[in-house]
């Protein structure tokens, strides 16, 4: 299994999902070798063996560079297109590139490459390096695995490389697509990588039907190959927190990256509407992101900054602390493949309002669902949960039962069925 991150060092929900899934798979008697770019050593390895890609040195590969490169020849081709070059010099350039790549490659594989495992500027470079290491790992561990499973586009190339080298079937897992991440101006390089992964895969798992539709319609993937397995949530390592509540007012919370995808501006507009009706409520926007400054300005402009608070990025237990302080949780995502945070809120007995445009809406019955753009409906729902205790109580207790029934073991057994399917096919 190729991932990009694993708890405790995570930047997003991907690591958490991988962790829950590997545990669920272990309970379903599936053994997992988990490869990640930069392991720190403090990951929980009770149900998974972690391979740190930064530690991989492959002398075998170094000896058979040509053979290896033939199998993974899709790597790095076309990344150096330059304008205004005539055909002859272009082909020379390509040849030059090839030679250079080969030399460079030999050098890399005599030494370890230290991945940052972050989402930084060298992301594309790391992605293709990771793919090479992926191929090398597949070669080293030949015979020790039956299926290759790659999570999100960062690891697709590694998955493909491993498939080419080992001949084993590839399952790719779509947690998010480029269409969820960017409002307009989809990054064509990322899109191409995603489509290539989906096309090369034997099966594609999506985290919701919403995502499945995107994969089928926008990437043109054969529907029979795409299976939805909804995420679950694992609370076994969670300690109950006692928090001291400083504010008397009810607290309505938005928690997540403050980016276009998460719909923060709809939250602000709805908050302003609620505040017009009653003043004994505070809104909190927890998290950080590229729209944060815009949101701060908007709240100031609306004149609600004494009731609308920003916390910045929350670390570790602060997230749980934030939920514990909340009376209503809102996830107004414009596009959310799944969305694990409402489940965390419900686990803390907090009623949630989620957008219909989120994958998690497919599995939750006891969350209030609104269209992300419908500010009036959102404000209505907020106001109702604040003002009618009966509604608040039902939503909280039914929500808790509901979230407790979402188990990774169940999700993992569906993943296992996919594995069995692809092995049987081969």
């Amino acid at each position, binding site marked *: 299994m190729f991932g990009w991150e694993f708890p405790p060092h995570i930047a997003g929900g991907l690591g958490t999902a991988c962790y829950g899934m590997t545990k669920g798979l272990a309970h379903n008697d599936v053994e997992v070798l988990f490869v990640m770019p930069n392991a720190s050593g403090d990951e929980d390895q009770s149900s998974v063996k972690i391979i740190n890609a930064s530690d991989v040195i492959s002398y075998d590969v170094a000896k058979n560079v040509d053979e290896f490169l033939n199998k993974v020849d899709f790597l790095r081709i076309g990344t150096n297109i330059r304008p205004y070059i005539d055909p002859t010099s272009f082909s020379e350039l390509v040849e030059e590139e090839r030679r250079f790549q080969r030399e460079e490659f030999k050098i890399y594989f005599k030494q370890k490459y230290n991945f940052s495992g972050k989402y930084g500027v060298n992301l594309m470079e790391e992605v293709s390096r990771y793919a090479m290491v992926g191929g090398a790992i597949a070669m080293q561990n030949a015979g020790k695995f039956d299926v290759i499973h790659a999570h999100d586009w960062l690891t697709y190339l590694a998955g493909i490389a491993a498939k080419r080298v080992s001949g084993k079937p590839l399952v790719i897992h779509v947690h998010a697509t480029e269409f969820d991440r960017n409002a307009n101006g989809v990054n064509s390089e990322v899109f191409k990588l995603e489509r290539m992964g989906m096309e090369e895969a034997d099966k594609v798992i999506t985290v919701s039907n919403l995502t499945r539709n995107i994969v089928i319609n926008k990437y043109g993937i054969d529907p029979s190959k795409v299976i939805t397995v909804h995420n679950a949530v694992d609370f076994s390592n969670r300690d109950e927190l006692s928090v001291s509540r400083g*504010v008397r007012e009810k607290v309505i919370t938005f928690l997540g990256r403050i980016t276009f995808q998460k719909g923060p501006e709809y939250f602000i507009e709805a908050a302003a509407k609620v505040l017009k009706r009653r003043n004994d409520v505070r809104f909190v926007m927890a998290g950080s992101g590229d729209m944060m400054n815009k949101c701060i300005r908007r709240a100031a402009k609306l004149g609600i900054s*004494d009731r609308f608070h920003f916390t910045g990025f929350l670390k570790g237990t602060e997230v749980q602390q934030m939920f514990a302080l909340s009376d209503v949780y809102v996830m107004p995502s414009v596009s959310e493949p799944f969305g694990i945070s409402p489940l965390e809120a419900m686990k803390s007995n907090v009623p949630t309002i989620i957008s219909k445009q989120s994958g998690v809406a497919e599995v939750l019955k006891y969350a209030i669902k609104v269209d992300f753009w419908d500010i009036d409906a959102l404000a209505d729902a907020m106001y109702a949960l604040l003002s009618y205790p009966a509604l608040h109580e039902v939503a909280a207790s039914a929500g808790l039962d509901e979230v407790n029934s979402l188990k990774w073991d169940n999700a993992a057994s569906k993943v296992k069925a996919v594995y069995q399917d692809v092995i049987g096919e081969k």
Partner: protein
Amino acid sequence: MIKSVCFYFQVHQPDRLRLFRFFDIGNDDHYFDEFANRTILRRVADRCYLPANSLLLDLIKANNGAFKVAFSISGVAVEQFEKYAPEVLDSFRELAATGCVEFLAETYSHSLASLSSPSEFKKQVKLHAEMIKKHFGQRPKAFRNTELIYSDMIGKDIADMGYKVMLTEGAKHILGWKSPDFLYTNAINPRLKVILRNCNLSDDIAFRFSNQNWSEWPLTAEKYAGWLRDALNEGDFINLFMDYETFGEHQRYSTGIMEFLRALPSEVLKRGIEFHTPSEIGELYQPVAPLHVQYPISWADEERDTSAWLGNELQNEAFSKVYAIESKVNKTGDDMILRTYRRLQESDHFYYMCTKFFSDGTVHSYFNPYDTPYEAFINYMNVLSDFEIRVDNKLNELKNMKNKK
């Protein structure tokens, strides 16, 4: 006809806020970053206040009363001196005792109250005057508003409080062809004299002194006194207003700023120019015209307006929210709460939220403890929210006590 130079130095240090998170709201009433405030005050005291005060004392003694200066020290700065560097306060008292130093009135907490709340403004001016009387034994007669902010209305308010002279910026967009080197009056109440900062000659010392790309660098006292003499062929007097921290802090000791200051008085006096304080200027000269200032001006930035503090929606929001609770705060009658309220009004808090990075960003970032104006805003609003809770609690407490009686 007497020709004069009038020196006035501004002394102020803000109460910087500590990082105050949402989780602290309602749980913690500790708002100020004592460590940063102490460290910075001690540093500036060692580099500027102490050496510059002792230099001024020498100069006053050496010139037998012919060298005079004026200070405006904010109330919150005096509180910091009392707490962290009492010897600085002593050295100012020594200067006061020479009789050659005038202390000006201002708002107690270096606030922008004049732009929002006449009642709070009046209260703070009064409080500051009492503080000056207590520490330096003189009741201020001349007034300078925070950052030299001035308008016809503010001038009128000040005249009503009994002040004879007010200082402000010689802003070009107000003066047009007129010169800042003459005496003017308030447009509404002509009994208030208005004296204007000569920005070119002031900034030659405050900003350009150490700039080695400046064609006039290095600036000597002799050369500078020559400029003053030339300018005074036309004008009556020249007002040199600047931050006191210019001497030793903004312009480091190594730039030669202290030697410049040491040499200046004798060079000026040699050329037949006298030193006078703002109140003396107001009595010595005849006003030439009323000055019309419809919209507030200040000495800050290229615009010389209030946009450094109230120029974007963040600043306007924070500013309107802090004054929205004024009457509530006053009702508590609680010393601690009133004191904190004043400190939350310091103009510096709003300055940190300024987004004019491109025009005057260098000056702004020098004074700013935050990385971005947004952080400054969030932090301030969190503190203000907590403060409002505290005020409400106090009011409830008072109400309950009343009911019991």
